[in-house]
C-alpha cells in the first residue's frame, strides 16, 4: 500500500535527515502494533459473525478461547486460531444425524430445542427407545469465517494510516507534517 508523504522543514537539513532516520526506525514497530490492533478487530468480527450465522455457544467455547488472535512478541507474524469444530461448522457437507443415547451433547441440545418434533425425538431416545424408529436431523454448514474476515479487512487501512501518522509525529518530534 503506497503512501506519499510530504515533509517540510524550516531549512535545517540535519533536522529533516534525523527525522527520516527516526521514521525508518519507528515504522516497523508501528507496523507490529497495527497488526496487533487489527488482530483484535479481526477476532471480534469473526466472533460476531459466528453469532450472526446462528452458531449458539451451546457446548463449545467459540466466544471465549475458541477464536483468538495471537501475535509473536518479536516477529511480525500473527495467527488467528479457530477451534477445529468451528472450522467444521463453517464448511461441512450437509448430512443427516441420528439421535442416539451415546450422543449426550446432541440429546441435551435436542431436549431444549425450540422445534417440538426435535424435542419429542430427543426425549424418546433419552428415555430408552431405539434411535432407528426416528427420522434423522439434517444439519447444514454455518459459514462465518469468510464473512468475519470481509467485515474486518476494510478496517485495516484506517489502523495502518493512524499508526503511520503516529510514527511520523514521533519521529519528527510532534511538529507539523
Amino acid at each position, binding site marked *: 500500500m503506497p503512501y506519499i508523504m510530504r515533509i517540510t522543514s524550516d531549512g535545517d537539513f540535519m533536522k529533516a535527515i534525523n527525522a527520516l532516520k527516526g521514521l525508518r526506525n519507528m515504522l516497523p514497530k508501528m507496523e507490529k502494533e497495527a497488526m496487533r490492533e487489527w488482530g483484535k478487530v479481526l477476532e471480534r468480527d469473526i466472533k460476531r459473525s459466528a453469532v450472526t450465522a446462528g452458531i449458539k455457544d451451546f457446548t463449545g467455547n467459540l466466544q471465549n478461547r475458541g477464536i483468538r488472535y495471537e501475535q509473536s512478541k518479536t516477529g511480525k507474524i500473527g495467527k488467528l486460531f479457530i477451534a477445529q469444530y468451528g472450522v467444521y461448522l463453517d464448511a461441512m457437507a450437509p448430512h443427516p444425524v441420528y439421535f442416539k*443415547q451415546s450422543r*449426550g*451433547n446432541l*440429546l*441435551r441440545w435436542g*431436549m*431444549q430445542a425450540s422445534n417440538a418434533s426435535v424435542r419429542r425425538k430427543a426425549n424418546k431416545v*433419552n*428415555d*430408552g427407545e431405539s434411535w432407528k424408529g426416528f427420522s434423522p436431523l439434517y444439519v447444514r454448514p454455518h459459514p462465518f469465517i469468510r464473512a468475519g474476515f470481509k467485515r474486518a479487512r476494510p478496517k485495516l487501512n484506517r489502523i495502518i494510516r493512524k499508526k503511520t501518522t503516529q510514527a511520523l509525529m514521533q519521529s519528527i518530534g510532534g511538529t507539523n507534517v
Partner: protein
Amino acid sequence: MFKVTNKAKDVRKFRDNQKGKDIYVNPKGFVITNRPPEANPVWKIELLEKPKVKKTIEVNEQ
C-alpha cells in the same frame, strides 16, 4: 460452589432456582452451580469451596 455429577446413564435435568431454568446434564457429566439439587442416587454433590484458614504470624521471642 457445588459440583453436581449425573450418575445416571441418560441425560437428566434439575431446576436451578437462581438462574430460573432447567439445567441438563450429560450422562456421567457434571456442572458447577450455586444451587444444587438434593443428593440422591442420580445426583452426586461435592462442595468445591475450600475452608478459609486464618493466617497466623509466629513470633520468635529470643
